[in-house]
């Protein structure tokens, strides 16, 4: 078995905020194998977004190491991190984050403009990525704000795919979608998983998590085993009942 795509070892992340220090991650260790579809599940405020930002090289750990494809991210400067994001990472956001007035194709091509992929290859790669997420060709030249939510999120997934990243990071990708559309988007991720893509998806929804190969739980900045998670859920629901 090859080395893991993501190898996080005892990572801490401490913020300085107006209210004092916030210990958002407390010694998180996590590996993601190549071709795996991992779900990180946790309630809001659990530190899952912080973890996602670290995995996406948008942020660096206060303590601990993060190896992305064997490269220690903490040794890289801002430009090298940007380079890594441009070539090795793909992002899918809850709110899609498409450029509203730009066409679908332009949106998908955007990450390539920050790489050295020659201009002549870009369109082809964007079309391929759009085909992979199943968006019909007639939408390619539409402005992205003319699309439905499900279509927008598929465009966003295509954008995450276009640079052939080592891993696709999806932060609540179905959070702004209705049930049926969410299912379609999840099917798209599942399809990419079958094509051998590595996917890390963050959610608070167990139904969404059921699409993944493996789920880890995060609570108060710590990753929990399934038993610990069950115990924690039971405890919180007991407390909840006690209060009513």
């Amino acid at each position, binding site marked *: 078995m090859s080395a893991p795509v993501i190898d996080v070892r005892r990572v801490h992340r401490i913020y300085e905020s107006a209210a004092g220090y916030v210990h958002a991650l407390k010694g998180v260790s996590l590996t993601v194998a190549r071709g795996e579809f991992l779900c990180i599940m946790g309630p809001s405020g659990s530190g899952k977004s912080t973890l996602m*930002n670290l995995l*996406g090289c*948008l942020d660096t750990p206060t303590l601990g190491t993060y190896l992305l494809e064997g490269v220690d991210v903490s040794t890289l400067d801002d430009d090298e991190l*940007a380079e890594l994001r441009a070539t090795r990472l793909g992002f899918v*956001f809850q709110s899609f984050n498409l450029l509203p007035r730009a066409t679908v194709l332009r949106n998908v091509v955007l*990450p390539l403009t920050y790489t050295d992929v020659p201009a002549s290859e870009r369109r082809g790669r964007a079309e391929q990525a759009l085909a992979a997420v199943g968006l019909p060709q007639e939408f390619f030249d539409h402005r992205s704000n003319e699309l439905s939510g499900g279509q927008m999120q598929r465009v966003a997934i295509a*954008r995450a795919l276009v640079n052939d990243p080592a891993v696709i990071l999806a932060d609540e990708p179905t959070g702004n979608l209705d049930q049926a559309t969410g299912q379609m988007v999840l099917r798209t991720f599942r399809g990419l998983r079958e094509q051998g893509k590595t996917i890390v998806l963050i959610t608070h929804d167990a139904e969404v998590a059921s699409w993944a190969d493996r789920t880890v739980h995060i609570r108060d900045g710590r990753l929990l085993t399934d038993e610990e998670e069950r115990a924690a859920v039971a405890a919180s629901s007991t407390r909840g009942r006690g209060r009513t």
Partner: protein
Amino acid sequence: MKARDLAYETFSALDANRGRSLLTVLGIVIGISAVIAMTALIGGVKQAMIGELGLNQARLVYIQCWYNRSMEVSDVEALEAEMADDYEYVTPLVWSGTDVISDTEKKSASIQGVWPSFFEATGVKLVSGRFFTEQESDTGALVTVLDQASVKNLFGNADAEVVGKTLRIAGAEYLICGVTESSGAGGSNPDYVQLYLPFSTCCSRVQGFTTVDQVYGFAREGSDMDAVAQRTTDWLARRFAVPEDERENAIWVYTMASTIEELNSMMMSFQVLMTSVASISLLVGGIGIMNMMLTNVTERIREIGLRKALGAKSRDITRQFLLESICLTMVGGLIGMALGYLGAFALSGLAGSLLGYGEGTALTPYLDLQSMLLVAGICVAIGVVFGYYPARRAARLDPVESLHYQ
């Protein structure tokens, strides 16, 4: 990020804010059009001066001296010989006047006795025939050169074939050997006639004495005209034994270059004034641009976060916003140049009459490439100066925070 992608981003961003962008660049437009209008007008005046005077005029030195006696031909010859390093030639002029009789007319003429080198020094242009030769000049031949206006007044038609014909001047027959362009001095006065005669002929046959009224020195190319004038003054002071305190009254050495210089410096101070007014407008315009760019950055915080997440480096973001502000100022500059140039045309009639070029002779505004490039450079500089802070601010945004900015 490649130049083409940058250009695309810039274009689409500006296109999205067309109305706001245009309003914002108004300050630049006004400032630049004021500068351009002024520069074009002054350029037009200079062009008109050069056209009117001829380039030779810049090398011409007018020399007169009177101290106990007038200048003589021998003085001119000595000056030419002794200051050969400074002058290509020195040539005398004597003014005279007498009646001139053609086949049909009899007019009173103003006569200038000159050496052949006079024509070259003053840049008088021939229309037909030739100037008189050194030999004719030396021997006092009976030849004459006249201008087209005089031809018209003597022969009824400015284009009449008169070379080879004769004129009767002071009782002798003179062969017309050449016709020059009209000097314009006489205007359309039908009694005006002006002739050139060889200097010696004029002295001996018309004037009756040999003093020189005016001397022209034609300086060597590239001379420092002020220095030449100074050396000439010194030379004359020695030759005429003029005491130090009499120099001002006795010696008159005057260069066209110094006139042009004076006019230039007058216009320069005018331009400096105008430019300082315009630069206030440019400053205000620049601040407007900065304001708009800051608004732009704030409006697009999420987009900036997204771009960073997708792999944009800080310098990609800096360049993108910097190029936007440069584009804004350049568009403003181009509009300003066009408006300013048109404005110069509108003002040229007024400026022409103010400068004494007369009613009908509106001058043509003139803009050289150098000033246009300078203005373009100023626009880019304003774009950089006032766009840098917003662009850096955009580039420094934290990707995590900006992605979740509401």
